[in-house]
């Protein structure tokens, strides 16, 4: 069944409280998993991702009256999730420091994380990604793990495709450098 984006937007604008709740449930059903993975790639820990996902939907729910339909619903939700995730990471700066001793905190976190499935190279990759600036990290995750097209990313992030390609290229270079220095 096709997701009734337009109908949901109309309900958000003019519906009763009960109708809005029903429409919001459709939104949750459609996007909760997708958003979870976007968040999880940024914050790594399952528990943190779960909390941020919940906060994202709570914020969206409390602000549905201000959603004017200028963007797609997923774009709106993604941006809330992104802001929540980055705020969370900025409150914990020790997890995203670059190299040396600081990098080991994420390594320890991944080693003890029962929901991390990667091998040693993938653990290193996660550490390298954590050293990237926010924007490059987001672009890299969307491109590398989700295989998202630059055009779609451009709509999602409100950035030109040229800038996104540059961000991705820089991210790859930094990851390469990270691997070369830690080998």
């Amino acid at each position, binding site marked *: 069944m096709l997701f009734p984006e337009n109908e949901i937007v109309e309900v958000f604008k003019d519906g*009763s409280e009960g109708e809005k709740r029903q429409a919001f449930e459709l939104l949750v059903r459609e996007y909760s998993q997708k958003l979870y*993975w976007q968040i999880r790639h940024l914050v790594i820990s399952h528990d943190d991702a779960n909390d941020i996902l919940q906060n994202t939907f709570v914020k969206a729910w409390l602000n549905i009256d201000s959603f004017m339909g200028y963007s797609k619903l997923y774009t709106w939700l993604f941006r809330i999730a992104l802001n929540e995730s980055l705020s969370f990471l900025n409150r914990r700066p020790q997890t995203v420091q670059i190299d040396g001793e600081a990098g080991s905190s994420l390594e320890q976190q991944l080693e003890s994380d029962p929901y991390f499935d990667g091998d040693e190279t993938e653990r290193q990759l996660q550490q390298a990604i954590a050293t990237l600036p926010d924007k490059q990290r987001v672009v890299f995750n969307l*491109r*590398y793990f989700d295989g998202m097209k630059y055009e779609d990313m451009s709509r999602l992030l409100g950035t030109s495709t040229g800038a996104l390609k540059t961000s991705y290229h820089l991210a790859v270079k930094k990851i390469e450098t990270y691997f070369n220095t830690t080998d």
Partner: protein
Amino acid sequence: MKQDNDVLTKCSGSRPFRVPEGYFEGLDARIMDALPERGHDTAVRPVTAWMRIRPYLYMAAAFAGMYFVLGLFADGRGGAGADGAADGCTVYSDEYIDSFLDESMVSDFVIYDLLVNNDL
């Protein structure tokens, strides 16, 4: 992304994360249950005739106010004995000038001095 570099081709490119068993099964319900009550019912209220015409009335009142103020300003400049001359100068009546001078606290000597020194 095999064109990226050797490092990235070593990785699978898939998500190296798992979730607790059954996590996604109850996720939507948990999210919905955790939503707080919103502060007020924002259902559409019936639009009354007063609500419909109110903005136009406010706009009309604003224009009326502007017209009134501009009218006062125009009266203040052009009234009390002033005539618009054909060459763009304003010609004031003697009574208007006398009353203006009386109120401006300029002495006769200053006026005389001004007239003589400027060959008026």
